[in-house]
């Protein structure tokens, strides 16, 4: 059901390769490519709005960045998981793995290394690696229109279970990645995550 698209990672890299042949030989390992995952459906629990109680609990959708595919359950080798607007990483209170994450403000394409100031976190009682709530983490909620909009320029950084670094950008919360101006929260199906990510498989902090 999930389609995988592959996109070449950055015009900068192409320009660099074309203009500077000697370094191409020295760095053959730079073949990391950004991948786009479309329409990952991750419905939230059913909640009674007047009492706040969960009437039907639903599972997270677990995803492995290393394998670029979904994992069946919590016990599998996943890095990040989705349910409603909540994103969890596989560590701490969320899982038995060692994946950690954080959110930074940057342009996805321009972020070519993990900034040295960044601290990676596990999920815990004192906070989630990817903070929840409007304006705190990856999205804004508009109480007037009820639209969930991924905040432009927010990049999620993940250190995977395997210890590799990945950068990730949520593109849309709505089916088929429509422009937000065309989203009607009453009729556009959600939550269908579209996101892109780039995994550096050599363990370095450069993308």
């Amino acid at each position, binding site marked *: 059901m999930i389609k995988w698209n592959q996109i070449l990672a950055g015009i900068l890299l192409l320009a660099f390769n074309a203009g500077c042949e000697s370094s191409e030989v020295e760095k053959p390992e730079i073949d990391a490519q950004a991948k786009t995952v479309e329409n990952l459906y991750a419905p939230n629990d059913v909640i009674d709005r007047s009492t706040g109680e969960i009437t039907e609990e639903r599972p997270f959708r677990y995803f492995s960045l290393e394998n670029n595919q979904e994992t069946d359950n919590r016990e599998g080798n996943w890095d990040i998981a989705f349910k409603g607007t909540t994103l969890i990483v596989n560590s701490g209170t969320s899982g038995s793995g060692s994946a950690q994450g954080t959110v930074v403000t940057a342009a996805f394409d321009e972020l070519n290394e993990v900034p040295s100031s960044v601290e990676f976190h596990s999920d815990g009682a004192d906070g989630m690696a990817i903070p929840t709530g409007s304006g*705190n983490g990856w999205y804004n909620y508009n109480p007037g229109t009820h639209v969930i909009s991924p905040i432009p320029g927010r990049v999620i950084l993940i250190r995977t279970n395997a210890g590799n670094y990945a950068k990730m950008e949520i593109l*849309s919360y709505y089916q088929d*990645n429509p422009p937000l101006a065309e989203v009607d929260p009453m009729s556009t199906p959600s939550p269908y995550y579209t996101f892109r990510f780039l995994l550096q498989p050599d363990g370095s902090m450069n993308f």
Partner: protein
Amino acid sequence: MYRINLNKYKILVGLFGLLIIPKLAFASDPIYIQDVEGNPIPHALVKIGTEQVLTVGNDGSFELPDNLQEDQEIEIIAMGYDTRIFQARELSQVNKFNLREKIGQMEEVVVAATRTDRSVEDLPMPVTIITRKKIQETGGMRLSEILREQTGLQVVGDHGAGLQMQGLSSDYILILLDGEPLIGRTAGTFDLDRIAVSNIERIEVLRGPSSAIYGSEAMAGVINIITKKSQERIVANLESRYRSFNTLDLSGEIGMNQNDWNLYAYFNRFSTDGFDITPEVPGKTQSPYQASTAQFKIGKKTKKWNFKVYSRFYNENSENSMQVAGEGSLRLADLNGERMDLNLNPTISFRPNDQWQMTLRSMSSLFQTHTLTVFQEDGSILDEQDFKQHYHRTEFQTDLQLDSKQLITIGLGHLMETVEATRYDDNNRFDAGYVFLQHQWDPSEKWNLVTGVRADLHSQYGERISPKISGMYKFSERFSWQLSLGAGFKAPDFRQLLLNFNNASAGYYVFGANLVQQGIARLQSQGLVQQMLLNPSQFGQLEAESSRAINTGFRWKISGDLLFQGNFFQNNISNLIETAPVARLNSGQNAFSYFNIARVISRGAELDWTFRVSENLQFSLGYMYLDTKDLDVLEKIDAGELFRRDTQNRSRRVQRSDYGGLFNRSRHSGNVKINYQESSTGVNMALRGIYRGKFGFGDVNGNLILDESAEYAPGLISWNLSLNKALNNGIMIEAGGFNLFNQTTIHTPNNPGTILFAGMKLPIHQLINQNK
């Protein structure tokens, strides 16, 4: 320059009166002075040569003396009208003639600008007057319908009909009724629909900060609503207007002006079925409501004393319905709202001589609202809220005319405010004392200066000093330039200080600045706080929002028939109060409070052309350019920290050129107005095209700023027409429409589309006199 108790006219009479030579042995038939519509102009002066002056009675008539040379020049002078010169021979052959109104209301007296009477053309600051006649010919029922047609003013639907002036919202505009502040705001908006217009004599619109006289709120400007008083011995009128959406407006007034007593009583009843621009959603866009306004004014004048007591009462009931999500289904609920407003304003002034005038005035107000929301199916209460605000102000003002060129005004005042509300904590009384000083000075014929400063001492935000200096240079009778520099401020309101709000279904909290410390401590003790986002040491005193502004512009009478006025402004506003999250809760939601965080610049130009094509055709054009910016957004853009999305929703950096400024502000707006008096039928026509350019309605792409074409509402032009005719017996009939071409967008909830109206005014006192 004598402004105490203004009466330029009386001074003129006094001067000329000395020159009258009593040799009116024989009188001619009376000659009537009229305006172009045929109404009498009372109190004109008829100046014969250099020596002789005749006064004109209430009915606008005078009689020529017999012993005049045929070629004797006779000058007719009346305030607000162009002067006319005749030869005696010409006058002896007519029994009436017309005077044309001066263009642009330049001689109208303004009180709000200096708290003394002063004419528009003598004021070194941007002021406009909306006269009774202009109000009448718009065909409007509520104040919003009058103000939205003025250059540079917008009416924006946000918790009521809120005014926007120089790019600043209703929160920053002081509304005065007969010079005294009106209270009662919802989320900062003063709802202009609370004010009926049929008892308004004129409206003064003062642009630019006036905190140097008025203190808090007068940051963008001041609107002073001056209500009618009786000019005639006895007056009684009935007025009615009916229009689309089953909207009915009925007014009655009775006035008396005798033996230095002035009595005036007014009652207005307004009702409407409301309208709905989203019929697919339950509930109406504009609630149906009924409102009553009553006003009573009494005044007594003696040679040295003047006593006045003004009172006003307003009551409104509205009903609507809405859809509420809950228990997995949508439920319908009924909303009932009540609003009540009461003002009492006594004034005593004492004028022992021509130099001194002392005025003691007070304003006591009560504003009260009650809203109740109940589910339709079982009548259970979803929400019930009360709000009650008391306001009391006492002020003592002394005016001292130092010499013919200098007038000093000193004011001392105290104000007290209390509020009780469902969502507010107790401990809600504010006290403030203030003193202001103003110096008006005409150093020469060409120069005109007004300097003022006010100091406020407030129990909540400490002390504030607000200075203002304004000057004007008259290059000639036709052209003057003015400059005004001033500081403005707005005190934090009750909501920002005292709100204690918990949205149970969404799980977030909002605390006023005075409560945030204890509110967060309580949440912490309940174990609800996941993480503090701000250091509690940052919680503390909320300061007043403040501005510095420059207004500069010109008045240019290109000819007797062509007037061009312009004003250029910039407001630099800092310490703007906004909500910010203080703690992240376990629920994933936030707790918010209010902080002085934002800085904004608003600048632009307001231009007005008025052109009289002929005696019965006048044409005017107004234009406003407005540029607003949030300085913190600009900083973030420059630092490369703000992003938007491309067509594939990938993040891209926002450039300065993408940024459209503040939401809800139109870069371009304007109006064109045509007034025509059809002489054969006596029908007056006023056609107005009111343009509001495109504006940002809200964020769409998730970065919370205005930077994308999908975030703009389209510009609209509303064509409004009114026709009226006065019949011989004084009855006035009218008909017309607003927004004739039905221009609407979903983003202007106060615009229902085309409205048609018809109305009638019955001058009962005239009808009775005629039948005698």
